[in-house]
């Protein structure tokens, strides 16, 4: 890299100013001529037969253009087992919040008023709400026999779908999928192990909590082509889903990803087929924007989980065996990340014996979706809690215990495949250094306050998906990169850095355009921490290709060999002869004007790497707990993250900050609380305790480690997912240190802490 390299420099987000100034226009801000607004009618029952829907009063309400049930939508083959193809319930509703009708009117207010007039007659049926009870033989069935159905695409896109054996346990009702791994003889190893930690851990269903609710606008052109503008992470996937739902060829559907106000894995496809169907039915543009309560009731939250673990070790701390039974509550459609949970659970540490059985169970709750490191957060909470307790039981330093057992390059994953080079040990070693400093600076214990320090580590396999990019030299000598990705987290800024570096032009001369499905080169969905890793490679190659073309034109015009040329500032010149030079603008014009003799510069790049670059992050947390009320806060938090190569340290720090805030939510506050009938009791931000800024750690430090990978652009790995993975576990471990009690259920409320403090000495 040259001295003025832009790789490794902290660059403010290209879209930072427009966002903070409130200038960004989101899907919900879109106003097309003649646009209509849709409001949904949601089921109040978790499980019921739809007897009758009377839409007459609603249809007669002022401004109403149409009232649609599942039977009225122009869909190709609506299949209740596939939510994407069946956006409105057909015969049965399977969760409280399941949309049963859509009212389309001239204004949103008219649609809302008319939606209240839709009369739906239900025959309530018993509901399976708790995932463990849903596995009992007499449990109400979510999916009738013969109905398939799953929603694993978003998970696959996150790199969360992994192979595994089918768990050998008699098929229970509502089990939509199983996974399993075995190695060695677990029972014997556990029998012989002098120390065994046996616990059941539970995490709650939580919502991804993005600021911008889901929104989609669809419009039909006079020839019947569909255009969809939507808040999605998954551009091409959404096009396929819409095309499939409506029975159209993909080229008749154009999807534009509008700027996205957060997604965290949730925003794949949900409203788009409905918006498209309503636009087709009314022949006018239709906008569908969810309210916050609809977000909580009717979208794709992260699953609740149960982990029954037995972790055995020798007196020296060497792990002997792990036995685990994992149950993920998938909600009404399959797609819970039980595979990734099983893989990571048995992957962080060297385990001579392991047996992991994972079950994905359907319940009468909304079908779950991905949420930043799906499955990994839950698995890591369970495993890292058990590791912490094991260290305590053995009287060992929890970091040393982890270092003793940590997987290194070549150690086997539960699948039997070896880990590539990973930074797990590096993270732990750096945590040891940070902890010494951290403990030296411990504030004095205040009266009535318990303090505790905890550590945890966790990782993410890293997603992969083929990607392509193109790079055009414009007439003023600047570069435009055209991509089919969604800029979910500032990735476009990284793309500009990569392109500037690879092409050899100033960063400010690079524009990144995220195009629509009609014009953009293919890229995978923005999930699984794979965009910089895969699209970045394509961009690097496209920019290098453009540079090669630029130099070829210059070589011809300057009558020099391409190898003798250099690109300096905004010019190409012959090395050692600064006056034999042409500016990029001159070169561009010579390829982009009437009668010009050079081909326009158009760089192309693509990648289809199948090598993953797993990335780890370690957390060191100090909590303060009010000894009487149990109120807790994270006082200090250090995150050590291996990023391969830090393309933009400021952007990485921002990812870590957000991850820690989400970790606090997981650990202390957030829970979608369902009652025994499957009614959501926390369907507003008043009742659903999303953390505010006051809940964020008082001090938060980020430490970036670089354990390079040969696969990512300039050695970079995905950075989005890893920092959240172990955050809740570290907080839970710190709380255990503060109180002397173990916490096995998330969130850990002040009430639970007060109870533990009362019980403990």
């Amino acid at each position, binding site marked *: 890299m040259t001295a003025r390299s832009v790789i490794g420099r902290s660059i403010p987000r290209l879209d930072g100013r427009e966002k903070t100034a409130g200038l960004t226009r989101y899907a919900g801000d879109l106003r097309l001529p003649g646009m209509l607004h849709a409001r949904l009618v*949601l089921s*109040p*029952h978790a499980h019921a037969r739809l007897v009758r829907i009377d839409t007459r009063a609603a249809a007669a309400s002022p401004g109403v253009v149409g009232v649609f049930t599942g039977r009225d939508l122009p869909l190709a083959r609506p299949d209740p087992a596939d939510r994407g193809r069946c956006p409105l319930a057909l015969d049965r509703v399977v969760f*409280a919040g399941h949309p049963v009708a859509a009212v389309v009117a001239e204004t949103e*207010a008219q649609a*809302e*008023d008319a939606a*209240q007039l839709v009369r739906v007659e239900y025959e309530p049926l018993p509901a399976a709400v708790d995932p463990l009870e849903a596995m009992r033989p007499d449990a109400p069935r979510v999916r009738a026999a013969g109905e398939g159905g799953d929603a694993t695409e978003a998970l696959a896109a996150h790199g969360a779908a992994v192979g595994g054996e089918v768990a050998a346990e008699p098929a229970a009702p509502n089990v939509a999928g199983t996974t399993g791994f075995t190695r060695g003889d677990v029972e014997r190893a556990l029998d012989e192990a002098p120390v065994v930690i046996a616990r059941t851990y539970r995490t709650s269903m939580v919502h991804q909590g993005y600021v911008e609710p889901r929104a989609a606008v669809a419009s039909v052109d006079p020839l019947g082509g569909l255009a969809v503008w939507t808040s999605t992470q998954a551009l091409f996937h959404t096009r396929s889903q819409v095309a499939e739902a409506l029975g159209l060829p993909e080229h008749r559907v154009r999807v534009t990803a509008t700027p996205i106000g957060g997604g965290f894995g949730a925003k794949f496809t949900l409203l788009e087929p409905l918006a498209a169907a309503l636009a087709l039915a009314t022949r006018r543009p239709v906008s569908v924007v969810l*309210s916050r*309560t609809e977000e909580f009731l009717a979208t794709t939250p992260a699953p609740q989980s149960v982990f029954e673990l037995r972790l055995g070790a020798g007196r020296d701390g060497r792990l002997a065996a792990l036995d685990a039974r994992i149950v993920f509550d998938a909600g009404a459609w399959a797609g819970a990340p039980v595979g990734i949970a099983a893989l990571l659970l048995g992957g962080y540490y060297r385990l001579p014996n392991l047996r992991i059985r994972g079950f994905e169970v359907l319940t009468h709750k909304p079908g779950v979706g991905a949420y930043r490191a799906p499955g990994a957060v839950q698995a890591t909470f369970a495993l890292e809690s058990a590791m912490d307790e094991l260290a305590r039981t053995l009287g060992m330093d929890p970091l040393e215990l982890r270092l003793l057992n940590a997987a290194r390059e070549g150690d086997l994953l539960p699948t039997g495949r070896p880990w590539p080079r990973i930074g797990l040990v590096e993270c732990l070693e750096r945590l040891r250094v940070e902890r010494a400093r951290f403990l030296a600076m411990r504030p004095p214990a*205040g*009266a*009535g*306050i318990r303090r505790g320090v905890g550590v945890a580590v966790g990782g993410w396999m890293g997603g992969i998906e083929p990607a392509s990019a193109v790079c055009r030299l414009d007439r003023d000598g600047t570069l435009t990169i055209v991509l089919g990705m969604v800029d979910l987290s500032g990735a476009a800024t990284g793309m500009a850095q990569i392109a500037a570096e690879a092409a050899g032009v100033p960063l400010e001369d690079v524009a990144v355009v995220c195009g629509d499905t009609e014009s953009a080169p293919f890229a995978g969905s923005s999930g699984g921490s794979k965009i910089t890793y895969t699209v970045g490679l394509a961009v690097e190659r496209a920019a290098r290709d453009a540079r090669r073309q630029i130099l070829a034109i210059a070589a011809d015009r300057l009558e020099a060999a391409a190898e003798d040329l250099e690109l300096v500032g905004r010019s190409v010149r012959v090395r050692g002869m600064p006056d034999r030079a042409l500016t990029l603008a001159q070169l561009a014009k010579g390829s982009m004007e009437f009668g010009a003799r050079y081909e326009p510069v158009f760089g192309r790049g693509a990648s289809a790497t199948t090598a993953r670059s797993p990335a780890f992050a370690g957390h060191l947390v100090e909590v*303060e*707990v*009010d*000894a*009487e*009320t149990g*109120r*807790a*806060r994270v006082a200090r938090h250090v995150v050590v993250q291996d990023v391969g190569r830090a393309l933009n340290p400021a952007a990485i720090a921002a990812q870590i900050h957000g991850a820690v805030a989400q970790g606090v939510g997981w650990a202390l*506050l957030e829970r979608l609380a369902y009652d025994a009938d499957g*009614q*959501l*009791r926390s*369907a*507003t*931000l*008043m*009742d659903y*305790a999303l*953390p*505010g800024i*006051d*809940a964020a750690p008082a001090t938060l430090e980020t430490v970036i480690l670089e354990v390079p990978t040969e696969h990512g652009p300039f050695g970079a790995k995905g950075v989005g997912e890893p920092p959240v993975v172990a955050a809740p576990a570290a907080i839970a471990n710190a709380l255990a240190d503060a109180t002397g009690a173990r916490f096995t259920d998330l969130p850990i*409320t*002040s*009430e639970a802490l*007060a*109870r533990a403090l009362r019980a403990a000495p």
Partner: protein
Amino acid sequence: MMRLPPFTYVAARTLAEAAAALAEHGADAMLVAGGTDLYPNMKRRQFEPKVLVGLRGIRELAGVRGSAREGLTLGAGTTLAAVAAHREIVTHYPALATAAGLVSSPQLRNMGTLGGNVCVDTRCNYYNQSFEWRRAIGFCMKKDGDVCLVAPGSPRCWAVSSSDTAPALVSLGAAVRLVGGGGERTVPLAALYHDDGIEYLAKRRDEIVTDILLPPVDGWRSAYLKLRRRGSFDFPVLGVAVAARLEGAVVRDARIVLGAVASRPRLAEKAAAALVGRRLTPELIAAVAELAAGPSKPLDNTDFTHPYRKKVTRVFVARALRALGGLGDAGRAVEAIA
């Protein structure tokens, strides 16, 4: 969310106009000040008034008059933000400034008024839900139904008084001035409330709260502590207001008031009486905290369980007393981990 139901808005310019509008429309009319409580409730169809009489344009309701020496008069239209920042209140009536400053979020404190806060609707897990949710569960007696879903078989509604300022004001011995068709009256604020989740206000429909009157400070000290899940935004699931007049270490007079444990601010009279004439020692504080938690009989119809709220009642009463007595670190007056 459903939209506001249709209504007629009367923008009153004077108290007389507002009173006349209330008299004219009777049970169909409601007052609205900042609207931060009423409008969301109307969207959920917890109230469906045909006429809203807006108080925001009434000059007489705005502002704080007087001094701590002679007593303060706070117009009902004073915003919570103004109350929380008012010098005289912050210095001499800290329980009130703290309580006002802990209501919800800055945006709501800029809109919400003191009058609206003392009249704020009672709350319950089964009531503060969307219309569709309540319809699915079956409506409760507070609105549209005839049973109590928290205590089935109960003849009364147990929704919880959730005002932050009400317990603080009661502890300070505040009075309230009401103006209505029948003229004007001033009553102790404690007399404004009934222990009933539906009929929680002991005032006639046509009466308007015009002022809150704080007595001369006269050596009283006060503190307010609030329990809620998050550090902002959330309604109290317990409020503890303690005011006391001390001579040296001896308590001459005291009031302890609990919020969010009943349908009205609840005076812990026995606990307060146990303080009078005695030195504020750690032993006395512990005993009084125990006594104060006695009458606290919360039901499980708010966030957190009843035993926990009861436990924290003891903790908060003790903390407030320690703060007033200058015992221990007064910095913990609010909460150790705020």
